[in-house]
């Protein structure tokens, strides 16, 4: 952990005061000097049928975004932010929006993205789960035939999903930093990034639907809900309340963004990462300084 911080910040890490009583720490930190991280990864923002709110969220890392662009990632594509018209080769594609399968160009774009990107990240509810475009049913001029919108995972393999509408700046940031470590880091950094990303990769494999019903199906019906309230806090349309401690979803309000399911500690929970929360939060903080 400390060597990550060192490589990321160029600072000598302060040794964390170790708890005397517990011996949960396994190994000594590798003291070998790491190469300073020089080569940035290349990142693109691919805009399908989304609202650009995901991109605004990325930008809402404020100076953090500047830091990312200075030190970790070159933005090689993104119609809103950069003057690049055609999808280039890139390490990480951040895809926003779902795909209208009646729009030839969109279908081509998403296929091209898969071919050109090493890692495809579905950013936000639309790309991950369809979100409001799940409700689309066409019939509106000037393109009444545009009626079927699919999450990108129905058309290509997706590596990582970031649910939510809008997805949060912090989770997008974390994924960017971890993708950087995964592709450019030392062995140790790669291992950490792999662990961190694992549940978001598993979520990508899990499928392309998530809404309040998934909390019912995969958490409550499975006897796993313990009434923490994370789902209610996460919901961006306030569709969830708690009645006698358990979530009540107003399904007529739900927009199918998947935030509740993703935030629920009983949807996924990885001890290896969570138990290290303090160090990892410090690491990310350090990386952003």
């Amino acid at each position, binding site marked *: 952990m400390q060597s990550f911080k060192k490589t990321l910040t160029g600072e000598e890490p302060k040794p964390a005061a170790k708890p005397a009583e517990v011996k949960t720490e396994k190994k000594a930190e590798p003291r070998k000097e790491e190469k300073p991280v020089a080569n940035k990864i290349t990142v693109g923002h691919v805009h399908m049928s989304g609202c650009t709110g995901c991109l605004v969220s990325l930008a809402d890392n404020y100076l953090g975004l500047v830091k990312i662009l200075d030190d970790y990632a070159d933005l090689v594509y993104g119609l809103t932010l950069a003057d690049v018209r055609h999808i280039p080769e890139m390490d990480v594609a951040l895809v926003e929006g779902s795909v209208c399968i009646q729009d030839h160009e969109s279908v081509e774009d998403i296929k091209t993205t898969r071919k050109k990107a090493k890692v495809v990240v579905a950013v936000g509810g639309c790309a991950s789960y369809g979100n409001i475009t799940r409700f689309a049913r066409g019939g509106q001029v000037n393109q009444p035939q545009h009626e079927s919108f699919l999450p990108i995972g129905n058309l290509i393999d997706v590596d990582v999903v970031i*649910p939510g509408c809008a997805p949060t700046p*912090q989770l997008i940031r974390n994924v960017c930093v971890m993708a950087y470590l995964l592709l450019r880091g030392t062995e140790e950094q790669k291992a950490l990034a792999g662990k961190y990303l694992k549940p978001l990769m598993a979520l990508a494999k899990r499928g392309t639907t998530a809404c309040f019903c998934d909390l019912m199906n995969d958490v409550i019906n499975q006897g796993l809900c313990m*009434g923490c309230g994370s789902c*209610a*806090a996460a919901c961006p349309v306030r569709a969830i309340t708690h009645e006698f401690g358990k979530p009540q979803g107003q399904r007529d309000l739900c927009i199918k963004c998947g935030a*509740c399911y993703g935030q629920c500690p*009983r*949807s996924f929970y990885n001890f290896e990462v*969570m138990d290290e929360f303090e160090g990892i939060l410090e690491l990310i903080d350090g990386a952003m300084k």
Partner: protein
Amino acid sequence: MGTELGKYKVCVSARSTDKEIMGKAQDGGIVTQLFAFALEKGIIDGAIVAGPGARPWQPRPFIATTREELLSARGTKYNISPQVSWLKEATRSFGMDKVGIVGTPCQMQAVRKAQLYPVGMRDVPDKVALAVGIFCMENFPYKSIQMIVEDHAGTKLQATKKMEIGKGKFTVITERGASVALPLKVTHKYEQPGCHVCLDYVANLGDISTGSVGSPDGWSTVFIRTKKGEETWNKAIAAGCFETKPIEQVKPGLELVTKLANEKISKNKKTVEERATFGVNKALRNPYL
């Protein structure tokens, strides 16, 4: 196992020196005292606590921003209080930058997941200023508590002054001083099912966690776990908020805590394993994968 108590820097037995707080606290008044101190010193802007709800002994999570409000939430309510449901709102319409929260181990897990994987928790990760975990063997739905108290213990909920779980008993103490102790095997069937996959007893992820087990009556066992926790704790000690004893010098001490933690974790690990073969070639979901 060796990890059942989580990481911590120090463990002590303690109680609040504030008579008013101790008046109605569950054990050593650790939670209320910590928040009252942190509030006074500006370490937190307010704290999410479980106050009195609509029905007798039903908790209602709310954001306390005064000492009076903190005091109103003293004492354990053995049924679900979705604490995390306020975590985001605290940073919104309450305008808080430093949020305190108390909760069970699963709720601490939820808080840390919100910080590490903020799927629907925009701008929350850096605003958790003090998370106080309370030990927890199991929790109950509201109706369970009503049945335990009114049917099994034969007392009125309204007339109940305190409930306690300890020494293998569920004890109901009435306003008029009577006390009924039920063996825990009576209450088992009423437990919240989600608790049966829970692998944390002593709130491993709190900044500070506390419970009655391990310390004498009226005292609490306290683990100081993180830098934030340590800072606040040291300041509170310096300010004379707590009376403390080394945990090694109290009875029954850490040994009992470790034993109970092990029992809980082994039992629930078994449940998690059994879920894998619950049906015929059909598993129930494992949230920890």
